[in-house]
């Protein structure tokens, strides 16, 4: 199910995040990359270098937008200024789909700049789905939601995380950005079987997959995007590809960023699982 209505019927391959330390390399060497994912908020500005670089990238590459502060799960309404700027960027990039996180992060217009976990309740699912629909209607582009890493669970939860994800995407009729590293991190922090998660999500709604590295501490794992992908996460990726088929895949590497070639090489490891699936 590589191309579907949730990713604009595209068949993108393996991409990487567009990050500042790689700008010069990309613009000068023009390496072959299937696609780049940009952090929308970094380019929701009125001018200057960010947009200049983006326009140069858009001349050569396919770009998909990924957001970090829409906060579909916050009780408060969507920020209209945010949406207005985001729509301007959507028109600039022509992104075939747009993703943000299944989380909350603001109260009364004050922002945490973090991806705070949802209580898995039917009330939360209904409110979140409604905001996803509002954003999609305004932005006029498929909106997909990403499962986040979490470090806390709520007494109020009425279902598992994957049941909550399913509830939200069914209500909103939207796609999923399945982050298999986040599934792994949360599974270790909350002691559940990550394969059960991967097996339980509606594969026909998956528009994109994220892979990444993380950091282990004594009592928990933190989603830091500063290491290569570990084998157990690749195993989850393999299972996801078995279920879904070859799907747009993106490696996130956001801190202690190594050379472009190292990041891209790590991302391209995903192709071995895709090839095995195609051969099978």
């Amino acid at each position: 199910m590589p191309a579907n209505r949730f990713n604009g019927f595209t068949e993108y391959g393996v991409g990487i995040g567009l990050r500042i330390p790689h700008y010069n390399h990309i613009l000068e060497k023009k390496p072959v990359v299937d696609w780049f994912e940009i952090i929308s908020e970094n380019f929701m500005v009125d001018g200057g270098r960010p947009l200049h670089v983006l326009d140069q990238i858009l001349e050569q590459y396919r770009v998909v937008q990924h957001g970090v502060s829409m906060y579909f799960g916050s009780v408060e309404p969507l920020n209209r200024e945010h949406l207005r700027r985001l729509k301007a960027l959507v028109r600039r990039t022509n992104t075939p789909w747009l993703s943000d996180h299944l989380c909350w992060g603001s109260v009364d217009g004050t922002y945490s700049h973090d991806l705070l976990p949802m209580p898995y309740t039917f009330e939360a699912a209904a409110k979140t789905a409604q905001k996803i629909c509002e954003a999609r209607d305004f932005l006029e582009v498929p909106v997909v939601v990403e499962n986040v890493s979490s470090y806390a669970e709520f007494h109020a939860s009425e279902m598992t995380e994957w049941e909550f994800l399913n509830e939200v995407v069914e209500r909103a009729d939207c796609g999923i950005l399945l982050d298999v590293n986040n599934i792994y991190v949360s599974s270790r922090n909350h002691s559940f079987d990550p394969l059960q998660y991967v097996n339980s999500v509606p594969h026909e709604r998956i528009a994109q997959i994220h892979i990444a590295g993380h950091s282990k501490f004594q009592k928990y794992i933190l989603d830091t995007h500063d290491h290569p992908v570990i084998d157990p996460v690749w195993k989850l990726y393999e299972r996801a590809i078995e279920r879904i088929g070859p799907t747009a895949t993106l490696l996130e590497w956001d801190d202690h960023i190594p050379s472009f070639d190292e990041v891209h090489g790590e991302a391209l490891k995903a192709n071995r699982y895709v090839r095995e699936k195609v051969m099978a």
Partner: protein
Amino acid sequence: MDLDTIQRAMFDAVRQPLTASEGMRQRTKDGRSLRKVADEIIKPNDRLSSFERLEIYNRQYWFRILSALGEDFPGLRAIIGNRRFGKLAIAYLSDCPSHSFTLRNLGSRLEQWLRAHSEYLADVEELALDTVRLEWAEIEAFDEAAKPRMTADDMSSGGDDPKFELQPHVRLLDLRYAVDDFVISVRRREEEVDIVSNAVMERATRSRVRRPALPKPERIFLAVHRSDNSVYFKRLDREAFAVLCALRDGKSLSEAVDAADWSGRSIEQASAEVQAWFAYWAAQGWFCKTA
């Protein structure tokens, strides 16, 4: 417990300042137990208590915004030192939390806040305020809009007493210290970073590098502007600054020229200077087409 109640309780806890050892406080300033708040909303697991799980988010919140503010104001940090800057940043961000979807705007109220909290600046108040003004102007100049430039034809067709609109990215600063060179030397030591991940593993540590010498009092007039996607600081004559400020405020050319103090100059000298300034400003693209 409904979604709104959970989010308000967690958000309030997450925003509580950390202890000196960078852990979560036991109680809020008004005496509420954060352990009780955590127990009420968050499940413990076999390794972490409810309090410890909530503490992860409390630490991440502060590490992220303190790191972002420190990156935006390295000059202020260099002047007052990392320790004092840390205290100032915590107080500022407690009073003025982010109201924007982007961390870019985190320092937008810092100058105003500092004017009401000069106790954080002690004996360097004027120098620190000038530095903050310049560093915020630099942030704005970096990514503000650039409208189409005013052309020579536009200028000549503006009538007898035209108006000139400054580009949105041009900022004009009247400073009591020559902080431009100071900020440049401090900035050279900083690396470009963009924060996009879900977690901040640890508070950014600042290496101890020798601070550039602090500038002495020296009134300067500065234009902060963008050219070829880089931000520049351009020192201006007092009179040129007065003319530009008047143009920025919507005055006509003749009104703007009258705003400057021309004492000691002949009309011919003043006229030649104004022409040279306008030629330079136009070449830099500081004027944009008016609507």
